[in-house]
């Protein structure tokens, strides 16, 4: 069984996450995919404080599950070197109704950005630049 939160150097399969989130009790499955944007960069490096990031992502996931009565929630975040267009983060939430599924997905994303110890570096022809946190 796939873990509900994952930090991986492998490509993320949003389709498999969506499939796992489907159930007879879920009337809505909402997904978010964050991808590497081409701002004149050649590639992106993503780094994690891995075990701490995993525990923080699991805490966020559980908060979302209870706040929004989710049927299922999964989060996957890439690390390593990513090409333009590749997925950095994927979030899938299912719920009985769409409002909760949308809210859960957004909650996990916003909390991840402010709480999970992860960093991105953009590499261009001019050199590398760590993305400033929000």
């Amino acid at each position, binding site marked *: 069984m796939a873990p509900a939160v994952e930090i991986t150097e492998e490509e993320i399969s949003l389709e498999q996450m969506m499939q796992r989130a489907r159930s007879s009790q879920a009337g809505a499955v909402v997904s978010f995919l*964050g991808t590497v944007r081409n701002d004149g960069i050649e590639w992106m490096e*993503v*780094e*994690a*404080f891995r075990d*701490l*990031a995993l525990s923080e992502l699991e805490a966020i996931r559980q908060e979302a599950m209870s706040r929004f009565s989710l049927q299922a929630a999964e989060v996957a*975040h890439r690390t390593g070197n990513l090409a333009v267009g590749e997925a*950095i*983060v994927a979030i899938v939430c299912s719920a009985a109704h769409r409002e909760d599924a949308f809210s859960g997905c957004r909650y996990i*994303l916003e909390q*991840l*950005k*402010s*709480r*999970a*110890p*992860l*960093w*991105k*570096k953009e590499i261009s022809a001019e050199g590398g630049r*760590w*993305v*400033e*946190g*929000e």
Partner: protein
Amino acid sequence: MRVKVLAFAGFREILGREREVEMQGDASIRELLEMFASCSPRFREAASEPFCALRDHVLLMVNRKRIDAEKDLYRILADGDELAIFPPLAGG
């Protein structure tokens, strides 16, 4: 006294991902950071404002708990403590 130091992102590029540091007697977080700064001008530039104040973008954890870089800088480290140094989070 031995302290494990973990560094991430830009600080990892300067200090390395993980190292053990041996300190003589009691040492505060500030003294440990000053030791890094005295050995590495790159670290000094990345971490310090003029007059040795820590830059806002230096975040610290001791034993996986965030500490206040102003209030807790003089906290004495214990043998076996783990100090993590990193910039503001930027995942997603």
